[in-house]
């Protein structure tokens, strides 16, 4: 091996100084650098690399255990997810109708009382109310162009940003109409980062469609999802469909998230916990829809 050169303290000091300056600037003014032109410059490179990545993936699929039949399975899985989401929506309508019927019965039984109808906070954009299908006026379609180089965070970058009206916290829908994440803090002019629901810092208020039990879904460090904070008295079964509850106003209610996979808590514990199977394959996202639902600040 060739003998290495000796280090120059001046060069090292300059390099360390620049790195320290970058860190300090970001601590003083977060996102200042992100919002610059760096992302705009790199966007074509990212898009090109994504295309190359997809080609690589399709070429390597047969060697990594995949085949043409696996593609069929993938297509069928996507169809299944879409049907499941539709099923969730219908069951959600049924459950809501049942709740409204109960409320109506209660109102009839108590004619002396005055009632004011109200929605759970965060019902969603009124623009969506009269839409049977997702239209361009309620959502922004975007392509996933990059992942996160850090193995400790689960974010993807999409090719829509502040210029398209995106703001932090907007829900992002993917793969057959299920919630896959929310717009993160880094929103640039032309790109934005989406915090996936399996990021360890992601918490979503949810509801089980059948039992109406509420809880939270938290992302785990290993990339899985866990349903938490469900009261022990509630019934939780494998296969139960999970939707957003709308509690807290951060997300509109009724967005499909996934299904209960396996109960992991014991009967003697105060709260129930279960693993959750997400409704979309979070590793293979290509096109997503950002809902123009602005969460309260």
């Amino acid at each position, binding site marked *: 091996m060739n003998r290495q*050169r000796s280090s120059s303290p001046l060069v090292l000091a300059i390099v360390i100084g620049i790195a320290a300056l970058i860190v300090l600037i970001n601590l003083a003014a977060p996102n200042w650098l992100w919002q610059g032109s760096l992302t705009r410059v790199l966007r074509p490179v990212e898009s090109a690399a994504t295309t190359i990545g997809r080609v690589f993936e399709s070429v390597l699929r047969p060697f990594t255990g995949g085949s043409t039949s696996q593609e069929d399975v993938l297509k069928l899985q996507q169809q299944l997810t879409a049907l499941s989401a539709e099923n969730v929506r219908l069951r959600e309508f049924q459950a809501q109708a049942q709740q409204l019927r109960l409320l109506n019965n209660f109102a009839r039984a108590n004619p002396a009382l005055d009632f004011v109808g109200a929605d759970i906070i965060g019902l969603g954009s009124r623009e969506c109310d009269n839409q049977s299908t997702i239209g361009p006026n309620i959502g922004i379609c975007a392509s996933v162009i990059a992942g996160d180089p850090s193995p400790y965070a689960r974010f993807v970058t999409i090719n829509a940003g502040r210029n398209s009206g995106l703001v932090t916290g907007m829900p992002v829908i993917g793969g057959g109409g299920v919630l896959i994440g929310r717009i993160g803090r880094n929103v640039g002019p032309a790109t934005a980062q989406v915090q996936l629901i399996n990021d360890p810092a992601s918490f979503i208020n949810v509801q089980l469609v059948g039992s109406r039990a509420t809880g939270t879904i938290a992302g785990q460090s290993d990339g899985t999802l866990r349903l938490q904070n469900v009261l022990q008295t509630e019934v939780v079964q494998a296969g139960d469909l999970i939707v957003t509850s709308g509690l807290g106003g951060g997300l509109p209610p009724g967005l499909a998230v996934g299904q209960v996979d396996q109960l992991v808590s014991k009967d003697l514990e105060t709260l129930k916990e279960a693993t959750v199977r997400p409704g979309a394959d979070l590793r293979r996202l290509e096109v997503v829809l950002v809902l123009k639902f602005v969460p309260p600040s």
Partner: protein
Amino acid sequence: MRRHIFAAITLTFLAVLEAVVLPRLFGSLPRPNLVLIIACTWSALRMDEGFVWALGGGLLLDVFSSTPFGTHTAALIVGNLAALILSRFPLPAEFFRVTNWVAFATIPYHLVQLGFLRIDQRPFDGTLALSGTILPLLVLNPLLSLGAYALLSPLQIRLNEEERFARRV
């Protein structure tokens, strides 16, 4: 000048590969830190220039990452500094200078990232980070550095010759 253009192109290519292609191919498996490998290999061969590569590569990774801006830059510089300090101690295998350098840099590189996540109040599982990411990469990164060494070593020889010639002139 040509070698700086080469460095810029190589680092951009590897950063894009690390951020765009590897997450799709590896999924939740440990992904090699390509920019760390190339910057550390160049540091082991050319010292100061490797640190400049680490700075440039770190900035590029920060553009793609959701972690606070500067995380990867600081992590790469700290990783390289730790490897530089450790490489001053007598090591039994001088031959494996590059692999040692990359291995020594991998641990602080990840620890600094986790430190930044802690400052940002983002949760992580330390045990899983160690067993599922750091330890596998402690093997994978040095192995891949042999490939980086094979790529960069001829360039290093040529640069050394050019510098010797320039000094003589």
